Each structure stands twice: as structure tokens, then as C-alpha cells.
């Protein structure tokens, strides 16, 4: 496991990569997203696990994104995602709609190394009609006709998330955000930004091991203090609602979004801006 500089870590993402991002309530790698903008990445294919928020909207606004597969893009109480909405209307980004449990199921199929998994529901939704990669079969275990959706495994090229701690073996502590283990297991390459480093092995401590993702899945880490800001990080720091409202307001126009980038992304380290 290599410890890298945040911008070097972001620079390692190839243009066009299929990148899985957790939503705004689950250790979003916001500082990493800003570093991707600074690195000028292009044609990224984002995967919202299962939905998308600030980081995705920022990357779309900055022109880094070709497509986003997700069950929803929103800034929560701050409203619709302005860059996503504008880029979609302008035909600059493609959205591949899903429904939340389908995103989880497709990633779990990749986690288990099976080519597909079934999911109940969904039949009758227009999502299904627009997903030629999803199939409906007759449940082989039912006595009579019982249509059920099969979803293909979804293996991201890269999964990125923020964690509280990393140890020298590359184990990272995500606390109760255990769902991040699934994208770590499913992806080909896993990049983790961390709030801080620790010397002790996280898996050797019975109190910390339950919230730890093994370094077996982690390819590289980088330090990023306040790495989820403006989003909350467990009990470490809270949600910066004022900043999110400022983002939502500025991002409503191209000019405003450019001003946001200048102020918070391109010139200043994000953590300094957060003070």
C-alpha cells in the first residue's frame, strides 16, 4: 500500500475510468473530487453508490464527466444538483438511471464474483425499459409464472472514498459505514483518502477491526484533512450547510460555478478554505 500526495493520487485516475463514489452521507471523498478537477480529468464515468451528490455535481460542472450511472443526483436539502441538471439539458453528460437497491445488487454481484444477481420490484418501471443490460427471467424456483429482474455485475475500475484512519498495512477505518466495503471488494482499484494516520494495526484491535476495511483491498491512500468537507465525517466534524447552500447558489450559473472553482477548488487547498 502506497501513501501518496492527494493530487498525485487524483492524477493516477485515467481519463475515461469507471469511478464509484459513495453518496453525500457516506464518507464522500470531496477533497479527492476537487483534486480530480485540479488534475483536469476528462470523460470519467461516475457510479453513484447508490446516489450522487456534491462531488458528482462538482465534477460534472468542471467538465470531467462523460456519464453518471446513479439512482439520483441531488444536493439534499440544498436542492437539485445544478451542474448535473444544466449539463444533462445541454447534452454534455449522459445519465444512466437505476434504482438504489439495483446499484447495491450490481456491486454485490461483482463483490461475490457472480455474473448477475436477481432483484425484486422494478418491473413496471420505465427504468427497466431503458436498461437493455437488465434482463427479466421467469423465477426458476416458482411453481407458476413469476417474472424477476436479473442485474449484471458492475465492477468499477476505481472506487474512492474517505476514511478516518489508515494504518501502515493499508487497512482503513470507516466506522459504521460498512457499506463501503462492498465497493472496495467490487472495484479493480481502490483509492482511499484519510483524515489521519495511525501506527497501530487496525485489524489487530478487536474494537477497531469491525469498522476496518482490510488493506488487501486498498491500492493507495493519501492524507486529506477534512476530506469530506463540506459533508460531515461520522462524529469527527459536522455538515457545513452554509457552504453547501453557497455551492448550490453559485453553481446555478456557469459564472457562479467558475467563481466557486476559483475560490474553493483551483487555488486554495480545500482544508484551508474550511477553517
Amino acid at each position, binding site marked *: 500500500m502506497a501513501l501518496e500526495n492527494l493530487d498525485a493520487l487524483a492524477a493516477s485516475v485515467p481519463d475515461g475510468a469507471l469511478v464509484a463514489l459513495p453518496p453525500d452521507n457516506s464518507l464522500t471523498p470531496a477533497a479527492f473530487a476537487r483534486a480530480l478537477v485540479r488534475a483536469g480529468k476528462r470523460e470519467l464515468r461516475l457510479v453513484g453508490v447508490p446516489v450522487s451528490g456534491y462531488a458528482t455535481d462538482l465534477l460534472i460542472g468542471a467538465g470531467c464527466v462523460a456519464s453518471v450511472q446513479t*439512482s439520483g443526483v*441531488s444536493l439534499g436539502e440544498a436542492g*437539485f444538483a445544478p451542474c448535473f441538471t444544466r449539463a444533462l439539458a445541454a447534452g454534455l453528460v449522459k445519465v444512466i*438511471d437505476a434504482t438504489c437497491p439495483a446499484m447495491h445488487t450490481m456491486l454485490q454481484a461483482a463483490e461475490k464474483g457472480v455474473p448477475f444477481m436477481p432483484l*425484486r420490484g422494478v418491473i413496471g*418501471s420505465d427504468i427497466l425499459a431503458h436498461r437493455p443490460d437488465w434482463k427479466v427471467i421467469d423465477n426458476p424456483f416458482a411453481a407458476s409464472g413469476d417474472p424477476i429482474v436479473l442485474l449484471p455485475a458492475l465492477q468499477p475500475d476505481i472506487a474512492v472514498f474517505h476514511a478516518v484512519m489508515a494504518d501502515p498495512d493499508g487497512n482503513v477505518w470507516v466506522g459504521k459505514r460498512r457499506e463501503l466495503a462492498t465497493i472496495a471488494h467490487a472495484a479493480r482499484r481502490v483509492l482511499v483518502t484519510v483524515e489521519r494516520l495511525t501506527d497501530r494495526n487496525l485489524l489487530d484491535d478487536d474494537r477497531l477491526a469491525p469498522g476496518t476495511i482490510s488493506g488487501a483491498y486498498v491500492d493507495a491512500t493519501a492524507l486529506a484533512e477534512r476530506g469530506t468537507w463540506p459533508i460531515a465525517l461520522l462524529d469527527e466534524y459536522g455538515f457545513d*450547510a452554509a457552504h453547501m447552500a453557497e455551492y448550490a447558489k453559485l453553481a446555478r450559473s456557469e459564472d457562479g460555478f467558475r467563481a466557486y472553482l476559483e475560490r474553493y477548488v483551483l487555488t486554495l487547498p480545500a482544508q484551508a478554505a474550511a477553517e
Partner: protein
Amino acid sequence: MIALEERMAAAIAALILDPAAPPVRHIAVGAASPIPAAACWLVKKGGHPVRLSLLHKHTGNPFTEGTRELFDLTGQGRIDLFFLGGGQIDGQANINLIGTGDWPGSKVRFPGSFGSAFMYLMTPRTILFREEHSPRVFVPRVDIVSAPGVSPPGVFRRGTAQGLVTGRCVFRFDPARARFTLASVHPGETAENVRASTGFDYDEPADVPATPDPTDQQLALLRGPVCDEMLETYPDFCARVWQRRASDERAA
């Protein structure tokens, strides 16, 4: 002065506690649903034993496997009631969270379907809610179906909409006929008003009752302990409806 959000929360609470409906043990509330969240807290703080899973509660969130745990819980049959809104809702209770115009929302794009395509079929009871009651929202037929109101025989489905609570009225839904019936209109509204504001057809009794006002006890609960529970998750909502801010009450 009773806020519309308070009326809607009380109307939803009445549907939750409808003695004719199956008992509710575990209710889940999705993202961006402050009015249903207030209704659930109102039920719970009113002394009814019910387990609430509020997905977007930052602290004290009951899940350790993220939103997947909510969908798995629902798959297991453990969630009795869920709430769904809609950018469009039609008379067959189809909901559209994707957008208007052609796929995937060529006129107006909404955020997306979230879990609706699963939850609507897998939950025994769904209460639909939408504050804006206009022909723009309540349409004859949704442009895009995020989740269908009813399903053909043979499609596995545990339940449908129980009702629809809007800024003007309460509808009940009959899945056998795939049709709404006006159940009550909020004070200040009339059956004619509702008809004019609704793009879909529905049934209407000869006499349409008024939606009861929240009781004084309910208002006290909403403004006190319910707001206390919601401050962290829905700060803007609490500020708007109850003029309370978490930041006024504790250091940030």
C-alpha cells in the same frame, strides 16, 4: 396559526394509524422527506410503539450497512410502511421522479428514482405525499414511470399506495380499481378547488369532509419534541416551519 406542513404531517399520521390498515411496527423514511418524518415522530412521540428508521439522520442512524440495509430490510418484509413523493403523480398512482418530456427528462429533469422502483412494490403500505397540488404535478398520465402504482397479476408485489396527502387534500387509493377517491379537503379548500387543481380523474363522495386540524396536543408535540428530533437532519425545514435553528441552541 397552523402551518400547512403541520396539517400534512397530522394527516399522514392519521393514515399511519388508520385502524383499518395492517398494524405498523417499523416505518422507514427516505431522504428529503421532512413532512413524513414529522408525521412519524408525531406518531412515536404520541406514545405509539413504532420503530423508525430515518435514513438520513446523521447521528444515531440505525444502519451499519448504509442504504443497502434499508432495502434489505424491506426485502426481508420487515418494513411495513414507506413514503414516496413524485415530480409527477397520476390517477393510477404511478410516480415519476425522473423527469418530464422524453426519457430521461427532456423538459424538466428531476433528481432520479432513488429506491422507489423497489420500495413501492416491496412495502405493504406506501403513503404518497406532495405539497404542491397543481395540474403540473397531478397529471392524467406521468411522462415517465419511476415506479408503477399497480402491477399486473403474477408480478410479485406486497402493497400499493394507501393514500396521497397534498397541500390541499387527502386522497385514498383503491388498488383493485387503480383509482383515487377524495377523502378530505384541508380547511380553506373546496372539492371544486381540488378538482380544478388536479390533472387526473378521481372519485368523490357527495359530502367531502374537512381534514381535521391537528389537535393542540399534536401541535405541541410537533413544535417541541418532534422538532427536536428533526433539527439535525432537516435544519432548513425546521427553520422555515418552526423558526428554530440548531445553531441557536448549541455551539456549531
